[in-house]
């Protein structure tokens, strides 16, 4: 039978597989088994490269340097603030109310804890009132009416060597987490 087949004069067909077999063996002994191991290498490489690409893409969106306004400012001396009054002079520039009571001074965030609007200090009714949804806060920052779920946040407040008040907005203290008792959340004067 093999003899019979070989005598058939179909020149391209018998030649093609033989030639293919020769070349693959000649190149690097690439048989079925090693082909699949190379294939898996290829896939691992492809997945790693794709994963790396998307990781880079994500990381690219997180800048290393932020061009944002300075978050720490000097707010004058304790004597600039009258006991029992809410100072709104840093509200527009830094988003901070500075309040002095009998014991000391604290810095309240002007961001409503409901959805982030800016409440107004109503000196006649002694409360912060948010124009967006009507949340109300006492001068201490404690919420007592409207949808706000928690008190206003306080910022870190310390004294410089010359006695000036420094307000640091990168550090905040939340009443519901018990952070208002932190020594830097309240400036004793």
């Amino acid at each position: 039978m093999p003899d019979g087949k070989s005598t058939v004069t179909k020149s391209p067909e018998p030649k093609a597989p033989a030639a293919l077999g020769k070349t693959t063996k000649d190149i690097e002994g690439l048989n079925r088994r090693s082909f699949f191991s190379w294939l898996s290498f290829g896939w691992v490489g492809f997945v790693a490269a794709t994963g790396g690409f998307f990781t880079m893409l994500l990381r690219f969106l997180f800048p290393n340097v932020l061009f944002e306004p300075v978050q720490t400012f000097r707010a004058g001396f304790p004597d600039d603030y009258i006991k029992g009054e809410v100072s709104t002079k840093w509200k527009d520039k830094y988003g901070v109310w500075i309040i002095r009571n009998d014991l000391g001074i604290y810095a309240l965030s002007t961001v409503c804890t409901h959805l982030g609007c800016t409440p107004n200090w109503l000196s006649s009714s002694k409360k912060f009132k948010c124009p967006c949804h009507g949340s109300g806060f006492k001068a201490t920052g404690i919420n007592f009416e409207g949808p706000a779920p928690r008190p206003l946040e306080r910022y870190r407040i310390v004294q410089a060597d010359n006695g000036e008040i420094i307000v640091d907005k990168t550090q905040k203290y939340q009443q519901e987490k018990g952070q208002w008792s932190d020594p830097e959340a309240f400036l004793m004067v």
Partner: protein
Amino acid sequence: MSENNKKSFLEKAAESQVWKSIFRGGGVPRNRRQRMMSVLNSVFLHLHPVRLPKHAVKLKFTWCMGGMSFFIFLILTISGILLMFYYRPTIEYAYTDIIDLAEQVPFGIMRELHRWGAHAMVITVWLHMFRVFMTGSYKPPREFNWGVGVVLLLLTLLLSFTGYLLPWDQLAIWAITVGGNMARATPFLGSEGPGAALLAIGDINFITMASDARFILIGGRFMGEAALLRFYVLHCIGLPFIIMIFMAVHFWRVRKDGGISTPV
């Protein structure tokens, strides 16, 4: 010879090499097969069905809300590109450029067209969804296309939201402030969201104010110019690019899934 003289100018043009090279298949379609081939051979037309049953396009049944949405999308694309010639996405210029567009640039209606068109598109997309729901057109084999449509609805709302910020007026700033605060409450990926504290090793928090979902959205810890630029890029390039891919799939699947509003 007499036959050639009877041919109209259009017919002659349709036999020219220029026509045949542009429109594959060439010639004026004269029978059903040729008409079908002329649709299938055009990259724009092939998204649409070759032919429609007469009852399927009745306005009282379809409301034409899908078609209206696409039409408004085209108006928004054209007017939006025109607006980009004047608008600069910086805190210094954004608001005044919008005023300039409305009051000084010729055809100040262009900005109004874009703004009202955006409102209209949200409405037509909702009505389209409502019609598809009421006629049961979400049922198999169209369930996948319903899913694509939900993504398109989401993208429409995101386009609307990102465009809302660009005038940089009080409305815009507070909308993005509130939107950003909502991102802050994202589960796991928002610094104040549930589960964010779980993604920490010891005292080191990985999800903080400078690395959470809100941060990547507004490009900073506080609302500012980075947020304006990010929303501008998303509004003008990112989201339109994505929505066009989904729209192509959506229209193509309408054809493949049995055409518009016909029981299958």
